């Protein structure tokens, strides 16, 4: 589960709310979304939100933080 408020807010978005989130987040980052790219970016972000929901829901609450370098 997400203890991080920014992450929790993102995970709680409905698909319809992703576009507004994208615009606000892009503005906050100083990362303009070109009009020709906006629809594609929102589609991708919607998919990423669903995928993030999948694995974050499965992450045990007591899972340790990520090591600096992953060892296979």
């Amino acid at each position: 589960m997400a203890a991080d408020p920014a992450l929790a807010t993102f995970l709680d978005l409905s698909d319809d709310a992703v576009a507004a989130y994208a615009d606000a987040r892009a503005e906050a980052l100083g990362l303009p979304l070109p009009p020709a790219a906006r629809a594609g970016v929102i589609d991708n972000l919607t998919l990423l939100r669903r995928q993030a929901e999948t694995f974050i829901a499965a992450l045990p609450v007591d899972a340790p933080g990520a090591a600096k370098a992953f060892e296979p």
Partner: protein
Amino acid sequence: MSSRSATTIAADVRSGTTTARAETEAAFAAIAARNSDLNAFTAVFESRALAQADALDADLAAGRPVGPLAGVPFAVKNLFDVEGVTTIVGSKIRREAAPATRDATAIQRLTAAGAVLVGALNMDEFAYGFVTENAHDGPTRNPHDLTRIAGGSSGGSAAAVAGGLVPLSLGSDTNGSIRIPASLCGVFGLKPTLGRLSRQGAFPFVESLDHIGPFARSVEDLALAYDLMQGPDPLDPLCRRPAEPAAPRLQAPRLQEGADGPLRVGVLGGWFARGAFPEVLEALEIVADALQARRGVELPGAEIARAAAFCLTPAEASHLHLDDLKTRPMDYDPAVRDRLLAGALLPDGVAEAARRYRPIFRDAVAKVFEDFDILLAPASVCPAPGVGQTTMEMDGRQVSVRKNLGAYTQPISYIGLPVVTVPLNRPGKLPIGVQIIAPAWREDLALAAALRLEQAGVVAAHRPPGSVWGGF
């Protein structure tokens, strides 16, 4: 099989049957004859290659020792640094970059072994994709059917070997970019353990997931090239492990135990069967039968691992591109740009969570490997889709080709396990590959299984129509 494997060419050069110059010129002739159809090469290095070939021939004439790949032409995905050449990484943006000041470590090591670098190969922009339909350089076409894709992102690397332009090439694999094109083009590909081969001089995509590895038309060539690139490299912090050559172990008696002795083989079910085309599952069955495998093994958390890799990729990659995404987004391939921009918008916690799941999944898979030496899974969901095809059916739904061809490869690279992709021997049909997955640092087991399958005729890189395998 072609008689012109890398090993054969090197032996012929050493024996004086042919010369390094003749082999290098033959490679350029093959590229000239076939690349306009395949669009595998984006650059050729004629003067460099011929100079090196002449130096090798001079060494041989003088009785000086030459390496095990003496006179063998090879080519690399255009994300590898080549001294004096701009590393374009399939992009428009990088075309303005300064030329590389030295070769990537992998190229240095193959060159030191006598291999002759003849050119650079097409790819998905910045290695983000499974299709090699590059907006700037055009699509690489599948040698087995020019209306179909070669796969990606190392599509040029697979197509160049499958089409007989070179016997050996290098690619990179972050989420499946060696395994998918190897499968769709019908050649052997090795994605080694994360950290096994140096990535110095290979332009990064997702540094925590990036691997490099070879393509070849035989297991022997694949193992030889892999061995020659092994060893620690202080310039890649992940590459610290001493070399553990696999090729000699495939031949020596102790190695024969691996190649011919009993292997405990499992076939992955669950996520790794979901949505696969019938012919893909049929190919898996044939390989499984040949290795007397046990069916229905589950990797707990595979779907979750795939989701984590799917999110970690744009989250991490977008950091590298943030400045260019802010200032010149329209210079990117649109398919790549939209994914990178979306990644940049993710909250930081997504990448952190994706990294935290890695050891959990790694430990779960390690437990499965207590009962198995190797695991089998399909490499790609389907045989090669058409050029320009944007969707495909998976599990009864229309899904994006670009985003789903790697469904079965992503969970494995997420935890850095070694995989040999082997092409089922089915001449006259579109190629289908199978992943042979081994525990971390046990590339030898995957190669041993691949060798056994090759010797039994179950897998083979067969000649595509119109290929120039007479040359190679």
